[in-house]
């Protein structure tokens, strides 16, 4: 009799143990599994390495500036500060830029012209898409219909008109000018834009992009308006 009771209890306890373990497994499942294959991990690694090298070059640049400050601080601090301000103005897009580059011309597509379709403005979404496509390249400066694109530029719809920097851009055709760091980059940009899928997106809106041959000299105007720094305040001296 006693043996029988024991065997029953053993079986029941076994079942309980199994259930508890199953519950434990279910609750404590690890996060989503890493299912990337070697190639994806390699790509991830190369992306991270690129970021690493960019950060390193930035650090060395800042170090250089710091070295200048400490080295020449005693001699001519104002000069150094002026230099830095000028560098920052260039970075912010407040100066004229000259370099090699290409010109894109956004035009109504031939079909639209032949059919006599009304020529509509370019939608802001499409323009943003194009700008993002171009911004994949480093050290790019560009203007859209004469408006310089800077970090705070807004491309948006204001009262039904597509605007850049708050200024309405003309209906197509209009030009987009892009300068890059050097001729090699320009050629790369040229081939990228020539083969880009963005043409298909433009075609849906009855527009085409004509990409000019790389030019040695292209000058972009500075950002026109007063640059407002609403949330920046001068640091008071302690």
């Amino acid at each position, binding site marked *: 009799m006693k043996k029988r*009771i024991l065997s029953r209890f*053993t079986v029941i306890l076994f079942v*309980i*143990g199994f259930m508890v373990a199953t519950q434990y497994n279910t609750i404590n499942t690890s996060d989503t599994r890493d299912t990337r294959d070697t190639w994806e991990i390699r790509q991830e690694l190369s992306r991270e390495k690129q970021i690493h090298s960019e950060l390193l070059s930035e650090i060395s640049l800042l170090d250089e500036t710091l070295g200048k400050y400490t080295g020449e601080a005693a001699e001519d601090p104002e000069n150094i500060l002026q230099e830095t301000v000028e560098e920052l103005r260039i970075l912010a897009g407040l100066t004229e830029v000259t370099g090699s580059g290409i010109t894109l011309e956004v035009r109504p597509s031939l079909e639209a012209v032949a059919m006599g379709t009304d020529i509509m403005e370019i939608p802001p979404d499409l323009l943003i898409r194009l700008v993002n496509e171009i911004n994949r390249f480093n050290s790019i400066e560009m203007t859209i219909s004469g408006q310089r694109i800077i970090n705070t530029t807004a491309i948006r719809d204001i009262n039904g008109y597509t605007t850049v920097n708050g200024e309405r851009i003309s209906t197509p055709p209009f030009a987009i000018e892009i300068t890059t760091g050097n001729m090699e980059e320009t050629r790369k940009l040229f081939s990228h834009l020539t083969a880009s899928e963005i043409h298909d997106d433009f075609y849906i809106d009855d527009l085409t992009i004509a990409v000019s041959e790389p030019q040695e000299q292209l000058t972009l105007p500075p950002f026109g308006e007063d640059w407002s720094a609403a949330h920046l305040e001068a640091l008071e001296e302690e």
Partner: protein
Amino acid sequence: MWISILGLLLGISLGLLTDVQIPPEYASYLSIAVLASLDTLFGGIRAHLQQVYDDKVFVSGFFFNIVLAAGLAFLGVHLGVDLYLAAIFAFGVRLFQNIAVIRRLLLAKWTEKRG
């Protein structure tokens, strides 16, 4: 007695080693089933100590309680009422009662032995 604990350990290790998993939606059913089985287990121990243990009652109670609790939880999910709370409450209260009775019986036995 030790052999029962061995059974428990065997069950746990088998569960952990085989890494069996159920879909997370059903985890609540399993937890209620575990509670029901614990209730039956302690009920069985108490009955054994009170010398009223019945094999059939014990085994049928084990399976019936599990099915009933899971069924109640299932019904609750479909009716939008947290019926599983009823099962948790009932089993929880009974679990404590059973354990209290077991403690008293064991204490009584112990004092009898010493005295």
